[in-house]
């Protein structure tokens, strides 16, 4: 009983010490937590959510019966192209493309009808000058859409001509079918059945919250242990009757409480100020945040045990942050990665934190139940491994 009381005293002392140290240096905490939120706010307020139409020059052959006024191509705007100029000179247009004055040059085929009648496909050439692979993909997609649009127009014209002939020979049933329906008998009618459709900021806000919580927990706990090792306090712990269990529990409780406080304030800001819907149970949200914090603290402890300097701990924490930005689903969907990378992504606590928080708040339920188990397993494995390594470190020679 006495030993239990003493152990509790030691653990609570460690908790109190950690919290006091953080409270006494609020600047570091504020920049750690508020920094990412401010960046997110700028991103959310500054990002329109759509792509800017590409500046386009349409090169129309002189003998083509197409308009030469850019305003006539206003329909292209809906396809992501803003026609700023219509030119008859492809060389000049290419030069403007090379200079960066325009993004896209659309070269209309010289005689599409003749090619068609000759049984050949006419090339609607789309020229671009882009090094950004994402933009290049996007431009390629626009080119395909444009080609489809032109094809559809050709079908429509052909259907119109064909319909007149069909009606004249007795096909009265076609009389009520417009040529565009004949050209495009099926059209897409998208419908989003998600219970909410949050704007960019609230959607990424939840992911940012998970990322901030993980980064805060990893950085603070890793630096705390490494600093104590460097200052010699770890020797003091080793010599005083402090056990690795008490040290781990003390750190986890202290930074867990701190993380919970940050999560609470952030959740209030997200729901109350930024208007993020809160469809799920607050209890479940708290449980997910708790699991995320536990797993992140385990990761931080592991980093602290394997780092021999503060610099190394900081570098490893930043690497975890970088990996989390790329692979957690924060920016890119995890499904877009290869299987081995997906496996690695699922080892990051934040991957499950983002998925579960977005599900709970935006859908009201946990869609991927296995993520809860995964987060719990990650937390357990990391904490037990860190405890084991710390215990070995604190053991006498």
């Amino acid at each position, binding site marked *: 009983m006495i*030993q239990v*009381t*003493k*152990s509790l*005293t*030691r653990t*609570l*002392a460690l908790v*109190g*010490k950690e919290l*006091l*140290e953080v409270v*006494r*240096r609020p600047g570091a905490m504020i920049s750690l937590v508020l920094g990412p939120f401010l960046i997110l706010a700028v991103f959310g307020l500054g990002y329109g959510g759509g792509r800017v139409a590409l500046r386009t020059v349409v090169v129309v052959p002189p003998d083509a019966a197409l308009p030469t006024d850019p305003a006539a191509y206003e329909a292209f705007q809906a396809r992501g192209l803003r026609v700023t100029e219509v030119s008859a000179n492809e060389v000049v247009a290419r030069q403007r493309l090379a200079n960066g004055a325009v993004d896209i040059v659309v070269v209309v085929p010289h005689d599409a009808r003749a090619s068609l009648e000759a049984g050949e496909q006419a090339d609607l050439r789309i020229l671009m000058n882009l090094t950004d692979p994402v933009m290049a993909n996007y431009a390629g997609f626009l080119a395909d859409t444009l080609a489809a649009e032109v094809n559809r127009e050709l079908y429509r014209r052909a259907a119109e001509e064909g319909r007149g002939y069909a009606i004249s020979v007795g096909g009265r049933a076609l009389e009520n079918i417009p040529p565009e329906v004949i050209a495009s008998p099926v059209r897409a009618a998208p419908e989003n059945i998600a219970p909410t459709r949050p704007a960019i900021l609230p959607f990424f806000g939840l992911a940012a919250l998970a990322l901030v919580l993980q980064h805060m927990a990893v950085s603070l706990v890793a630096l705390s242990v490494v600093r104590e090792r460097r*200052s*010699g*306090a770890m*020797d*003091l*712990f*080793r*010599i*005083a*009757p*402090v056990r690795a269990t008490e040290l781990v529990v003390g750190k986890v409780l202290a930074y867990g409480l701190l993380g919970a406080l940050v999560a609470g304030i952030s959740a209030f800001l997200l729901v109350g100020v930024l208007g993020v819907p809160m469809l799920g149970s607050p209890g479940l949200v708290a449980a997910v945040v708790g699991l995320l914090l536990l797993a992140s603290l385990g990761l931080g402890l592991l980093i602290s045990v394997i780092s021999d300097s503060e610099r190394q701990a900081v570098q490893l924490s930043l690497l975890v942050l970088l990996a989390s930005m790329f692979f957690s689903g924060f920016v890119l969907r995890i499904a877009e990665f290869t299987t081995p990378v997906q496996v690695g992504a699922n080892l990051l606590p934040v991957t499950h934190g983002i998925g579960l928080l977005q599900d709970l708040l935006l859908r009201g339920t946990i869609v991927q139940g296995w993520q809860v188990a995964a987060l719990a397993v990650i937390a357990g494995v990391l904490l037990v491994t860190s405890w084991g390594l710390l215990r070995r470190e604190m053991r*006498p*020679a």
Partner: protein
Amino acid sequence: MPAGTILGIIGPSGSGKTTTIRMLMGSLAPSDGTVRVLGEEPTRFHRDTREQIGYMPQAFVLYPDLTAGENVDFVASLYGLLLLRRWRRTREVLELLDLWDVRKRRAGALSGGMQRRLELACTLVHDPRLLILDEPTAGIDPLLRRTVWDELHRLRDTGVTALVTTQYVTEAEECDLVALISEGRLIGFASPVDLRRDAFGGDIVEVTTTGTFDAAVLGTTSSVRRIRQTGLRDFRAIVDDAAVALPELVDAVGEAGAEVASALEARPSFEEVFTELVEADRRRRDGEPEQATAAAAPSVPLGRPPGADEDPDESEAVA
């Protein structure tokens, strides 16, 4: 090491003092031999045993963002002191080390001397039986050093055993027992008085005559072990017992036809003692014949200090 004594491990920087401390604390295993502290091998300390030891590391390891009071309270908690006792002991040690008035000041804002005292307060807060202090007086001013030693003497008088390392050779005088180490070797282990005698082979008497005098003529005097001429009118005699030898020397000089101007028992400084012992150790290792010194080599192994075997029941060996 007998209980209730202060053992000073003295040696220059890099001589192995901290390594010794680390072995005593169980952070390092000895490459040879055995270490026992409070009856246990340090690498297998029980929790109860650890709670009886107060350790003060060489570097400042406390938390600069916590106040002086919070630091002491934290360390007291690490040793499992419950709330009321913790408050009482925190106040006691802070008052004892004259830090009570700055208890609410952050440790990082304290002067170097105050920080050292704060560390000492943290070391004492759980009432340890054995203190292991790694250079507690390093980097602090002479007045504060005096305070630290006074406090250690007071603790020693209450039965606390203290093992203290220091690179200040002169601090050997403050210890009950002194272990002089150099380059990882124990080159002297005795009480300060005995160590001084060991270094020079006996008491030292310095004699000055009124006129020129050749001290070699005194070689036959029974109480004199060795004579060294240090000037035309000065010589130094190594004797068994200065009190007995002084009148004999004065008589012998008179019988030799000279007159003694002064004859005093000399107390060589511990720098001289240390230098003498280091030189003797070097010569011994190099296989050179013994010269000026007689019993420089430690004659008593670490576990049995001088006096300890005279009446082993009177004191408990703690280290």
